[in-house]
C-alpha cells in the first residue's frame, strides 16, 4: 500500500510539470528593501490578491519568482537577467523606479520577454523608448497631471506656483501640468525644483511661493518628502491663503495619516483612490483590507490590475512570451479604477483620473472624490511601436 502511494506520488510529481502545459512562470521584480520597499510590498500584496481573485477565470496556473531590485538599477539588471535566462520566466511584472525601468528596458526588449510595469511612470517608457514587450498598467507621469491643469483653470485658478523634486519624474509631472494649465489660460508665476532627496526643510521655498503672488500652489512630492512638505506647508499657515494642489502621490493613503490634519483640504489628482464609487473597487478595497489590514493604495491597485491583465491575456490562450506580449497589449477591463485598457499605440494604460480632496473621516483621513476626469490616451511622444517578434 505504502509503496503504491509513493509510486503514485512519484508519478504525480514527474508528470505534474508537463501535464500543466499552461503553467506560467511570473518574475516579480520589485524593491523589497531600500527607500521604496513599502511600495514594493503593496504592489506584491495587490498582485497576489489579483491572482487569487481572478485565477479561476483562466485554465493557466501561475508560479511566482520574486527578486529584490533594492531600487538600484545595476542590481535590478542582474536580477532581470537571472529571471529571464536562469529561471526562464514567461513574463516579468513589477518595477517601481523609473531608473530601474530604464536599466532593464533593453534587456527586456532584446530578450523578447513581456514586462507588465506596475509603477514606474517615466513618460519615455511608453514614448520614445516604447517596446512591444513593455506594457504599463500603472500610469505615466504626464497622464496623472495633464488633466489637472485644465481642471484647475476651469475652477477659476489663474496664477500657480509649482514645486517638485529636481529629477526626471518631478519635471515630467510639473511640465505636463504646466503645459495644460497655460493652454487653458492659466499662468505659472514661479517654479522651483528642490534638490531630490536632499531637501528636508522646505521653509525657504515656501516663503518664495508666498511672495510670488500666486493664487495656488501645485506640487509633486512623494513618500517622506511629501509628509515633510505637507506638514511644513500647514505650519507656515499657507493653506488658508494659498490652497495646495498637486499630483495625488502627495496625499497617498499609504502615508496620509502621517501627515495628519495638515493634509485636510489638499486637492490632488490621481488614477486611483480607495474611495472610488464602483462595485469593482468596493470588492477590491474590502478584500485587500481583509488580507492586509491596510486601505489599498494606488500601488496596491497597480499590482492587482497587473495580475488581472496577465489573467486576461492568458484567457485568450496566450501561454508563451510572444503570445503573452501580443495579448497584453489588447487587454481591457472594468477594474477598481473604472474602465482600464491598454493603448496599442504606446502600450500605456488608458484610465480616468480622479480629483480628490483629503478630508477627515471616521478612521483618520479619507479621500473625497471631487471630479472624475475622462480617460485620455497619452500623446505618442515619439513611440514607434514595432510588431511583436521573437
Amino acid at each position, binding site marked *: 500500500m505504502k509503496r503504491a502511494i509513493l509510486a503514485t506520488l512519484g508519478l504525480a510529481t514527474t508528470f505534474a510539470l508537463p501535464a500543466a502545459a499552461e503553467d506560467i512562470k511570473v518574475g516579480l521584480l520589485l524593491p523589497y528593501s531600500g527607500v521604496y520597499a513599502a511600495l514594493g510590498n503593496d504592489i506584491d500584496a495587490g498582485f497576489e490578491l489579483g491572482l487569487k481573485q481572478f485565477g479561476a477565470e483562466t485554465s493557466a496556473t501561475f508560479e511566482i519568482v520574486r527578486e529584490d531590485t533594492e531600487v538600484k538599477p545595476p542590481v535590478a539588471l542582474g536580477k532581470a537577467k537571472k529571471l529571464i535566462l536562469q529561471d526562464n520566466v514567461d513574463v516579468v511584472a513589477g518595477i517601481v523606479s523609473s531608473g530601474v525601468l530604464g536599466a532593464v528596458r533593453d534587456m527586456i526588449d532584446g530578450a523578447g520577454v513581456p514586462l507588465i510595469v506596475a509603477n514606474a511612470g517615466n513618460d519615455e517608457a511608453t514614448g520614445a523608448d516604447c517596446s512591444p514587450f513593455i506594457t504599463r498598467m500603472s500610469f505615466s507621469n504626464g497622464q496623472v497631471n495633464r488633466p489637472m491643469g485644465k481642471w484647475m483653470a476651469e475652477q477659476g485658478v489663474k496664477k500657480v506656483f509649482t514645486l517638485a523634486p529636481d529629477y526626471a519624474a518631478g519635471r515630467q509631472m510639473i511640465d505636463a501640468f504646466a503645459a495644460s494649465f497655460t493652454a487653458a489660460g492659466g499662468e505659472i508665476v514661479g517654479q522651483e*525644483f528642490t*534638490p531630490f532627496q536632499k531637501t528636508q526643510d522646505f521653509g525657504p521655498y515656501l516663503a518664495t511661493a508666498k511672495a510670488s503672488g500666486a493664487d495656488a500652489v501645485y506640487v509633486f512630492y512623494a513618500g517622506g518628502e511629501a509628509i515633510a512638505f505637507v506638514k511644513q506647508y500647514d505650519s507656515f499657515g499657507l493653506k488658508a491663503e494659498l490652497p495646495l494642489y498637486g499630483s495625488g502621490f502627495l496625499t497617498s493613503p499609504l502615508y496620509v495619516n502621517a501627515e495628519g490634519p495638515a493634509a485636510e483640504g489638499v486637492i490632488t489628482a490621481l488614477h486611483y483612490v480607495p474611495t472610488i464609487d464602483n462595485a469593482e473597487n468596493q470588492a477590491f478595497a474590502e478584500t485587500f483590507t481583509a488580507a492586509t489590514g491596510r486601505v489599498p493604495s494606488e500601488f496596491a491597485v497597480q499590482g492587482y490590475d497587473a495580475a488581472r491583465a496577465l489573467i486576461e491575456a492568458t484567457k485568450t490562450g496566450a501561454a508563451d512570451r510572444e503570445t503573452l506580449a501580443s495579448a497584453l497589449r489588447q487587454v481591457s477591463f472594468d477594474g477598481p479604477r473604472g474602465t482600464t485598457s491598454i493603448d496599442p499605440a504606446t502600450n500605456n494604460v488608458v484610465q480616468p483620473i480622479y480629483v480628490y480632496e483629503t478630508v477627515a473621516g471616521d478612521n483618520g483621513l479619507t479621500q473625497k472624490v471631487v471630479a472624475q476626469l475622462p480617460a485620455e490616451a497619452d500623446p505618442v511622444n515619439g513611440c514607434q511601436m514595432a510588431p511583436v517578434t521573437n
Partner: protein
Amino acid sequence: MAHDLGFWTLQALNALQLSMLLFLLSIGLTVIFGLMHFVNLAHGSLYALGAYFAASLAAVGGYWTGFFLAPVAVAGVGILLYSGLIKRMRKSGSMAQVLVTFGLIFALLDLTRIFWGDLALAIEVPALLDGRLGFLGVEYPTYRLFIIALGLAIFGALAFVLGRTQIGAMIRAGVDNDAMAACLGINVERLFFIVFCVGCALAGLAGAVAAPLLSVTPDMGLQILIPTLIVIVIGGLGSLKGAIAGSLIYGFVQTFGAVLAPQLASVLIYALLAAVLVIKPVGLFPAKG
C-alpha cells in the same frame, strides 16, 4: 525679484532654524573627534534613532515624553556602542574606525527598518508649540522658534560648561593634548566616555526635535550626515566656536542659496567647502591653533 523686509526676515529665521538643528548634531561629533580623534560616522544614525524613539514614545506618552526620554535612550545606545565596539577600536587607526562606523550606519539603518518598518512616521507638534507667533513683523511657526531657542540654550549651556567649569577645562585640555592631560592626572578615557554619551544624547535630541518638523524615515540619518560633516570641516574640528560658526554658515548659505540661486542651491555649499579646504584646510576655528 523684489521682496519686502518680511520675506528676508522669514528666510533669516529659516536659516537660523536649520543652523540650530545642525548645531545640535555637529557639536557632539566635533568634540568626540577633537577629544579622541575618533571619527564616528554613525552619528547620523543616532539622530535617526532619536527620531524613531521620540516617535514611539510620543505615541505612548505624548510629545514631551519623547522629547525628554529619546535623548536618554540614544545615550543608552551610545553606551552600548562604546563598550561593545568603540573602546576596542580606539587604537586601531582612523581608517579602521571609519570603516567600522560606516558599516554601523547600514546595520542601524536595517535595524530601524526591521523594528519600525519602511513607512515614514510622523509626530504631531505639541499643542503648546502649535500655530504661529508674530515675530519681528512676520508670522513664524512657533515650533521653529522653539528649535531656534533650544539651539541657543544648548549653545549657551555648552559654552558655560566648556569655558567656565572644571570638567570643561579638562575637556579642553584633553582636546589640546591628551597625553599631557593624562600626565596631569585627568582620566582621559573616562572623559571621553562622558563626552561620547553627551554627544549621543544631543544627536538623539536633534532627532526628537526634528521629527515633528520633517518626517521620520530610515534614511534620515544618512541624509543629515553629509551636512553635519560639512559643518565640522568648515568650522574646524573639536571646537564649540567652530560648530556654531559652521552651522550658521551652512544654514545661511543653504537657505539663501535656495532663494537667490535655486539652480546652484545644491552646489553652493560644496563650493564653499572646497574654498575653505583650499584657503584654510584646518577649518575656520579649529580647537588646536
